[in-house]
């Protein structure tokens, strides 16, 4: 029973990672691709780490592994948005624009010429 729960959690994580990967391949412009990649680092990491956490506690019986898995999840979730934010802003300021016009673009209105 426990094994089934663990497997389901890992499969859910892999499912969202697959969705994010398809998004990275097929989205039309740079910023939308970045949006899709967030799927991988949130639900993908949470699902797999939750599964690994349960596995470490109940099947391996090793608290040190469980704590490390928790720390990995927490660190990925706190450091990822800083990088995503920096990449998005840097890409925009380096002059990368989507081919199709954006619906609204207040950033250009306030900061560009």
């Amino acid at each position, binding site marked *: 029973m426990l094994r089934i729960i663990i497997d389901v959690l890992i499969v859910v994580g892999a*499912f*969202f990672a697959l*969705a*994010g990967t*398809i*998004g990275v391949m*097929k*989205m*039309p*412009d740079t*910023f*939308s691709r*970045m*949006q*899709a990649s*967030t*799927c991988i*680092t*949130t*639900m993908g990491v*949470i699902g797999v780490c939750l599964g690994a956490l349960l596995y470490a506690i109940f099947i391996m019986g090793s*608290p*040190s592994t469980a*704590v*490390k898995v*928790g*720390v990995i999840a927490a660190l990925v*979730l*706190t450091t*990822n*948005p*800083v990088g*995503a*934010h920096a990449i*998005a*802003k840097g890409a*925009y300021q380096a002059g990368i624009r*989507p081919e199709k016009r*954006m*619906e*609204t*673009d*207040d*950033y*250009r209105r*306030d900061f560009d010429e």
Partner: protein
Amino acid sequence: MQKTRFPAVVSTFIVSYAFWILLTWSFSAQELAAGAVVSFLVALFSARFFIHERSFWLFNPLRLLIALFYWLGVFMVELFKANWDMAKRCFGGCKKVNPGIVKVPVDLKSDYAQAALANSITLTPGTITMDIAEEDGQTYYYIHWIDVQKPSGKEAGDAIKGTLEKWLRRVWE
């Protein structure tokens, strides 16, 4: 750049020592002593980046409980809904996108709360915070939104932030 203050060093030391214990997870005297020395050095050099305002806001148990409830409860629900929406978009051939950058007013004052809200928004699939600007005492976020439903302003802010802002205000203000 701030000067290093002693209370800030103490609270940074406690946080880094807790991280050391979590990472090693062994309680022999040698490990603990080495961890104390390393954490003190780290705290000495990084306290001025880590602590900006009150030094011991982190150790108020009520705030910690609310923060824990926010990250594990409120935020996880929002995260799952946004992820599901994004997964449907990706498997549907990536045709239903309507991207744009909106400007949203934010009422939080504390640095920590603003950073936490910006990170929460970035972590949710579908929205990325690109910049923070201040005009006439009002803070604005520039947010890239994959499916723009409303023009810039308060309504777009309610659609993006949901209840997150209310909870972060309870934690930090």
